[in-house]
């Protein structure tokens, strides 16, 4: 089971955090800081895996963003790379060649997509099409109830 997923930039700024195991805010911050510094210090030639506490850290860099997951000992780190890749593909499809800015400005959408891919740290849907369909349907619901036109200021903006 994946225990958490972090997205952060090359500058070490956190862009997304998903915790599947309850942690107090303080612990989360410390873990994040630790991992961000460790991973950013690694050279590009190094492999994508780290042993960290009793967990396996799997990370991969896509353009300026690092995707970093913590999985448990019996989990498959090669498959975890595939999960990361699947998430990136979904973001790419949704935003249309995604970039870091898309994720910064639409962070809630990035969360929604992740929540359609994983639940409780496990894969819930192996079909990209189904994930995107679910997201599109919910976006539509949101759009429908947001007054358009002159009064469009109602949404998140």
């Amino acid at each position, binding site marked *: *089971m994946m225990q958490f997923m972090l997205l952060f930039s090359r500058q070490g700024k*956190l*862009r*997304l*955090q*998903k*915790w*599947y195991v*309850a*942690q*107090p*805010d303080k612990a989360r*911050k410390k873990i994040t800081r630790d991992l961000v510094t460790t991973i950013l210090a690694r*050279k590009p*030639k*190094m*492999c*994508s*895996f*780290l042993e960290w506490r009793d967990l396996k850290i799997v990370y991969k860099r896509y353009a300026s963003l690092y995707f970093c997951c913590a999985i448990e000992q*019996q989990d*498959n*780190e*090669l*498959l975890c*790379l*595939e*999960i990361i890749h*699947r998430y990136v593909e979904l973001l790419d499809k949704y935003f249309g060649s995604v970039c870091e800015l898309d994720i*910064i*400005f639409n*962070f*809630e959408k990035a*969360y*929604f997509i992740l*929540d359609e891919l994983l*639940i*409780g740290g*496990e*894969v*819930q*849907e*192996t*079909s*990209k*099409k*189904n994930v995107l369909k*679910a997201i599109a349907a*919910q976006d539509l*619901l*949101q759009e429908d*109830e*947001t*007054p358009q036109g002159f*009064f469009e*200021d*109602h*949404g*998140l*903006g």
Partner: protein
Amino acid sequence: MEVANTIKQVINDAVERVKMPAPLRLRDLIRMIRAARTAAEEREVVNKECANIRNTFRDEDSVWRCRSVAKLLYIHMLGYPAHFGQLECLKLIASPRFTDKRIGYLGAMLLLDERQDTHLLITNVLKNDLNSNAQFVVGLALCTLGTIASVEMSRDLAPEIEKLLKSSNAYLRKKAALCAFRIVRKVPELMEMFLPACRTLIAEKNHAVLITAVTLVTEMCEKSPDTYNYFKKMIPTLVRTMKTLILSGYSPEHDVSGVSDPFLQVKLLRLLRVLGRGDQEAAEAMNDLLAQVATNTETSKNVGNAILYETVHAIMDVQSESGLRVLAVNILGRFLLNSDKNIRYVALTTLQKTVTLDQNAVQRHRSTVLDCLKDPDVSIRRRAMELSFQLVVESNLESMTRELLAFLSRSEPEVKSVCASNLVSIAERYAPSPSWHFHTLYEILQAAGNYVRDDVVSSTLQLVSDSPAIQAEAVSLLWEAVKNLKNLEDYQPLVQVCCWCIGEYGDSLLSIPDVPMDEVLESFQQILWSPHVSIITRQYSIMALEKLSARVPDTTNRIRSIVDAFGSHLNVDLQQRAIEFGALCRSFDHLRGPILEKMPPMPVDKDSKRGTSNGAGDTNSNDVDLLIEDGISTSRDRDPTSSDSNVLLNIIDGLDGDNDLGMSSSSAVYDSSDFSFAMGFKNPQPPITTSSNIFGGVGGNDLLDLLGGSFGDELSTPAPEPLSLTSVGPNITSMPLFPNFTHSVAINGGTEISGQSQQHELIPGQYFPSSFFSMNKPEQQSSLWLGAEHDGIMSEYGKAILAYSDEHIWIIFVPLLAYSSQTTIVMQVRAGGRSSQSQVNDLIFQAAVPKSLQLTLDPPSGTSIVQGTVITQRVTIGNPSKATLKMKLKISYSVSGRSQEKIQEIHDFPADFGMS
């Protein structure tokens, strides 16, 4: 009606907007925060906005709540506190609008953690939404529950989940299955509720439902043996599902670079692995499938390898047939050659786990593993190194050691010390001969430079010391190495070993034709004066020089001039060593030889396995450390980096001054039980009972006390010669060269010696003070304090006097205060030899006193003085009239066959002799 409502709301909203300007939009806030140039600026923007957000929260039915929470979530991600948004999230979830719910649930997942008391509230809203008719509302609730479910929530909401597992909607079934997974993880006993539903779910065609169901069942099987047994029956079904999956044609929806739904395949393999664990029948049922997956999976991409990797794990965990196991190890072997570093890495980690199961299969890939030692990726190199060490066996020792030594010399600092230590322990375990062992250690020292741990130095010394056959070779090899070293300071452990060996066995250098002693001394001088060499290394080289002066006679003057230069060195320890050596050369040159004799061999403790002995060595060396600080009351300015080897050195230094003792000293550093043992004398003599009594009395486990006591007692025995120590200066309290003199003896102003914390027996007759030979100068004799120990009860020993002394023996009187009174003086007569070489026999001590006194002599403890032993004899003098004490002594003994007879009169007893 609908229209009217909409119009009404629009108007209301418009009124609201007029009343209060719309708050900042989410994207505008993000833009503003990103525009901040400094952290302070950012904080200002955030604080201002947080204040606004709090304002909107205060408004009970604000239309802006959703936007505010969204902004708060962004602020939270930047690391600012956002706990005040928790309740607002719950309010949003309770709202009928989907946008509100979506943001509310998102906030709940981010801001709430298990400990929050808000959980009761969220349980209620979740329950509501789980029963909703709108698919996506239920979906949101399930997702949230799957992410943050606590034990209480799990208990409260499990029935809802169970219901949803049977939903006709696949979208809800898959989410419910993962919620159930979470619940089972939290509260395993709730699993039974989900069992019936799982049976149908596991046979699903829908990939999403199937993968979530497999995940759930895997978790349940791992948690409960009953469930495990139940689902074992499902193995054929699962195998069939897996086969269909592999064989099914291309399905674009689930295809990942030519592999059919790798996520599902991996999950199925994982469940099979759990179900087949330790069960022959189960293993047979899946052998075929595993073989098929192992051979037919496309390996050009990561996905294929992910499946193969999982297959390998399954084969290893399940009791697969041996052919299959070899296949699995071969897959890993192929992985090692893969161009993808991640695949090489997992191969190495998996092989590490496999090597204990099937050493032979892994051995076949040894050369590939060794190639990985040259990998550009440091983590892979490290893994390969660890695996390589696991692969070392006797038959491949030579080649593996060669490869690993080569690796050691090119590896990066942080790997070097681990690698060196592992090599040392391998050499220790498998060395075919001491010579091979030494050469390997030597190469480790050369390859790892300063990165070897200190225990490597001491174990090398021990090896050389224990193997006379290699000593000459070792000296010349080390000398060659150090002579050619460009930067000594980078190879200090090697230099230390070299110094020690030359010091001990330097005479063998003479037999080599082209080693001019001048050159050796030059090198030592260079070591001593190079700026970056540590104090420890300098200590080694000073000691070595001193010892060399005893090995190679005509070097003494040159060595003296080198060492004398350290008489004013800033480091107290070096200074002391130098001054003591000076004193030794000047005043006691005839003793220099015996004092600087070779150390007795330090037997290598074969039983102490590297791993454990390291730990034990550490703790003990601490104790020894303490001993040196406390027991010997040293004021040495110890190098903070002083380490095991330094401690060892100190002890060796101390001990090799007294090689007569024949102690195996260094093994003591490793094992405390050895320690007391090693402290025994070679030639037990009466006084030895004393020290063993001390062991018994103090308790062998109290190493510190034990040593504190035994050190002084034992080392004091071979008292060679009264020494003038006053030249050292009034405040020097420790003399590392002769710790036997200094154990708990402080010299103040050269006139007073007081013992500090010695271990004594309460029976004074057996007591044997450590420091009596410090009485040296005639003018001090009357005022010497001996053995004035403080055991807290009484002071047993009064001022002692030197009664007699010639070129062969000395005799002192030590009053026993505990037995003395106003009219009776009880004293102990102690006789010792001047030289540890010659033996004194037939010693007879006779005494006479004036008629007014009565004299009783108890039988002496012996008549011979051998190897520094001491004869004691109790003498009681009755003095009822309190007359002035006078005594006439007649001493007869024989030395090397010639008998001697001496008469001595003592008139100058101190007035208070024998008084407390």
